[in-house]
């Protein structure tokens, strides 16, 4: 296996983590990673150095955008608000964060995960999403405010509706 393929391979675990948080469903997440890898391997000759990590995350982010576009005509999946009292603290937290993520707008979820979970710089995220850094920062701020409100049991968007 050449150096390019080894570098791609080394990124698989982190790509799976990002995809899992992005898509929620483990199978869909691995589908996304698989398509990302296939596309990357196919484009090996087009990759002329640069940041391989950012490039892979860009492919995955775009594939997910396309996937969601193709699903756009289906009714959105609304998570059940099952407040299982038996769930342990960690389990309940996991469930809450998943639910909060699922209610985020796609671009905001992606920014939040890239910065917080994958440890990307604002500059890298701006390149991945193809937007100015200012846009990344406002998306991040909105994502954090929304998730915080969700985790604290508030519904800021609904509260002000009469």
């Amino acid at each position, binding site marked *: *296996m050449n150096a390019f*393929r080894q570098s*791609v*391979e080394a990124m*698989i*675990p*982190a790509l*799976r*983590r990002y995809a*899992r*948080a992005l898509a929620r469903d483990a199978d869909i997440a*691995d*589908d996304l*990673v*698989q*398509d990302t*890898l*296939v596309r990357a*391997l*196919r484009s090996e000759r087009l990759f002329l150095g640069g940041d391989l990590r950012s490039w892979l995350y860009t492919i995955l982010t775009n594939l997910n955008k396309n996937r969601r576009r*193709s699903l756009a005509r289906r009714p959105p999946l609304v998570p059940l608000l099952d407040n299982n009292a038996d769930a342990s603290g*960690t389990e309940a*937290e*996991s469930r*809450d*964060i*998943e639910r909060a993520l699922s209610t985020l707008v796609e671009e905001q979820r992606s920014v939040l*995960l890239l*910065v*917080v*979970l994958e440890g990307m*710089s*604002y500059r890298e995220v701006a390149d991945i999403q193809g937007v100015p850094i200012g846009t990344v*920062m406002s998306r*991040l*701020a909105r994502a*954090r405010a929304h*998730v*915080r409100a969700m*985790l*604290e049991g508030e519904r800021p968007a609904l509260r002000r509706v009469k």
Partner: protein
Amino acid sequence: MTEPNIPVTEDELHAYVDNELPAERRADVEAWLAAHPDDAARVQSWREMADTLHARYDSVVDEAVPKRLEIERLQRQPRRWVYGAVAATLMAFVAGGGAGWIARGAAATPSIVQSFTLDALDAHRLYVVEVRHPVEVPGSERDHLQQWLTRRCGWDVRAPELAGLKLVGGRLLPGPSGPASFLMYEGASGERFTIYTAKAKTEPTQMRYSVKGSDGALFWADRGVAYVVSGGNDRGRLTQVAQAVYDQMEKSGG
């Protein structure tokens, strides 16, 4: 505690948490947080959010990478996304030569060969990559598997004994015109073969070989049942396996 001269912005609070803040501004932000409990609480909540995200998703990094994501495998066998279904349909049409086949009569028309073979290959590709749930009934319950598939499919489903191959098990699938039985076998080095059978209104045929990507398939029909044996693209080995299946079906009376 001194109030910084320039007020701290929301962007700076985020940059502070994300280590994107210029070093010379850090002390200012820390002083600001000490004087503004609301902002300090927000910063704290963002840090907890990060911990929760890591607690939820970091375990994915330690999971074994599924076989279907192995680089070696992907280079050989690209996954076909939604386009795959369309491409497969087109391929069947083009290979069938379009309308020309319709005039050739119902007996084992290539379109039946094509549609069975494509269905079988799709099932083959879908399930051979499965590590944990390749089958519904494991090969260790051979008798139960045969009885169940026979009852559901309506003909005598036998899982043949194949030299050098172990029965992984089987499952029931929707076929072109009713239920289809699907049996999976595995060799010593992990190579997998599948036998797909479904009812087919066709005359007995000779074996027809097709290859799609890195998978090969052999189709034949006998006594109203169509068989497709799928495996890798080693045609000699596939023919050998298919021949063994054919011989045992003959013996058992189909």
